[in-house]
């Protein structure tokens, strides 16, 4: 017990890593304000890979890593579509994934929003003319926002989420 109390009084023991990006921080706090208002402090996102080249996933994972750490802003990635407000879709929708994409969307409770992340998801990207893809996500699901990029950076994704919050807030 004594130890527990003493620990509270101790200074922070984690390493002091300086990597603050002013622009990202201010975007993040703006996002937090919006999330607080529109989604009652918690925006839950389900990521769905419908045929990406895996670079967009890496940037989404980066959003949860120490430099960005979006959980600070009320944004979290959830394991099930049943817990999600927003479906972030990466990659052109392949024919082999089309059924799974629809089922994932159907499993989400309403109101629900879809964001296409990356050029492939926005319009098919380099694969737009391939026999193996249906096209961008909007060929299969109603898309509320597109975040282009090959892949978009974590900052661009965050900016996209902010735009989505503002759009939903106006509705």
């Amino acid at each position, binding site marked *: 017990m004594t130890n527990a109390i003493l620990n509270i009084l101790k200074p922070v023991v984690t390493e002091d890593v300086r990597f603050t990006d002013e622009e990202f921080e201010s975007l993040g706090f703006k996002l937090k304000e919006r999330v607080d208002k529109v989604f009652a402090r918690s925006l839950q996102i389900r990521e769905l890979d419908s045929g990406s*080249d895996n670079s967009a996933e890496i940037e989404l994972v980066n959003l949860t890593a120490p430099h960005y750490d979006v959980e600070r802003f009320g944004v979290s990635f959830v394991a099930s579509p049943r817990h999600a407000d927003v479906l972030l879709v990466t990659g052109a929708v392949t024919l082999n994934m089309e*059924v799974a994409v629809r089922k994932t969307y159907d499993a989400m409770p309403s109101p629900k929003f879809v964001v296409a992340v990356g050029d492939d998801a926005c319009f098919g990207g380099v694969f737009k003319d391939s*026999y193996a893809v249906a096209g961008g996500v909007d060929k299969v699901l109603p898309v509320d926002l597109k975040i282009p990029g090959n892949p978009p950076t974590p900052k661009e994704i965050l900016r996209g989420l902010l735009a989505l919050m503002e759009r939903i807030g106006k509705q």
Partner: protein
Amino acid sequence: MAFEDEVGVLLGAQGLEGMIHGVSGELYVRVEEEGFREALERLSGGRLILIDLFCAEGFGGRGGFTLFYVFEKRGERKVLVLERQASGEATSSIADLFPTACWYERQIHDGFGLVFEGAFDMRRLFLHEVYPEGFHPLLKSFKNKKFGYGADATQMEEYRFKEVKGDEVYQIPVGPVHAGIIEPGHFRFSVIGETIFNLEVRMFYKHRGVEKLAEGKNPMDCVKIAESISGDETVANSVCFCNAVERISSLDVPSRAWHIRTVYLELERIYSHLSDMAGMVLDVAYPAGSSQFYILREEFFRLNESLTGSRFMRGAVTVGGVGKDMEHANVKAVEDHLRGFSKRFEDAVESVESTTSVVDRLERSGVIRRELVEPLNLTGPVARASGAAIDTRADHPYGAYKAVTARTMEAGDVMARFQVKAAEIRDSSAIIHMMLRELPGGDFAVEPNIRDGYALSMVESARGQNMHWVSIRDGVVDRYRVRAASFCNWQAIEHAVLGNIVPDFPLINKSLNLSYAGTDL
């Protein structure tokens, strides 16, 4: 004995006549149907490893299909490529001699409709149920275009998984959509209690038609396609593709360009390995440890962006060289970055290796036995962590590489893969220092004058050996074959998980670092 002579002996009557030396030092030998089976049996007995099997239609002006069987012999720089004409719509399977042929033959059947008689598994591979019967996209008669049909689940026939029956055996189906931020694939576990008794993976949900997409395009426009095979292998695949085109066209890529490419290749290996190390540690619930690797990785992404304008180094490699020169300020920036990195990386590794609860989970989990490496053609850090001293940079050197040593461990478990990757990061850092120290002057690219021809190209990506075969006819790509390291290493996971518990699956999977996109194409 020279490799040519050895091949001559193994192929017997098929002989050396008509042996063609490819532009990448590969030996092409045309084989006849008569005696093919016996020759393949001798190759199998002669410890040759099947590293790829693919098909081309109308190759060299010949009608019908040409099958290319690519073999490697350990310690031999040259690879052997057997060319076999398929007569009609059926040919014989070699999956009983070379187990890895199973996926390749199924792949060829989907692509070209060619039937392999005697094969033990003839299910579809990359064409799932939504594709109609008789559809074979790699046939020249099929012009790449969109399909009208939407996905109708009720029309689908069931894909039969291997059934394991017995008291208390039950199945756990997982995927294609998984719980984390990861790529899609289906895993069918048969378990008894918590212990995994059998695993069958079903891949190719992300099949995007990479190979067909390149056909008929100018090679310069295909670099983008190569970059999209797998995001975190952007440089490895673009270098591999460009190298093939450059060899076909006899382009003399400047040494300076190769040094810069090597810096990019090794930067890619470092950030990829950092990602795996972070993932392995995270999957055993030690976020304080994994955060350190994530922080280091992000710093590499930022360095990549400052060097090339892209965090994934997209557009950095071009046919003929690199997109932009490495200025002196950048050389210094990379050197300073690596100096600052080294100590913090060692601290992060030390923090993992001194945490007993982490070590306890990493050791003896997901063991891949040494004997599996050759029959399954395992490659990269996965093979090296099981004791196989193989590395394309050393075995089939390309570009500016010299004196690369394959880092090996014996245990074959998750811990061994963790430590091999740590050692390789140190080596990569040393290679980059060497490249920058010895950076020659001169141009960073040559004019890409494209010629017709074909060539094989191999690059050691972070995941292992990637192989591209490119054939150019009339100035455009006639056939683009891609075999990524992950395509081979996916075979390992079905063995690595046996006897482990289901909760260790994510950890084992992470330690193998398999690319779904690179496999599904």
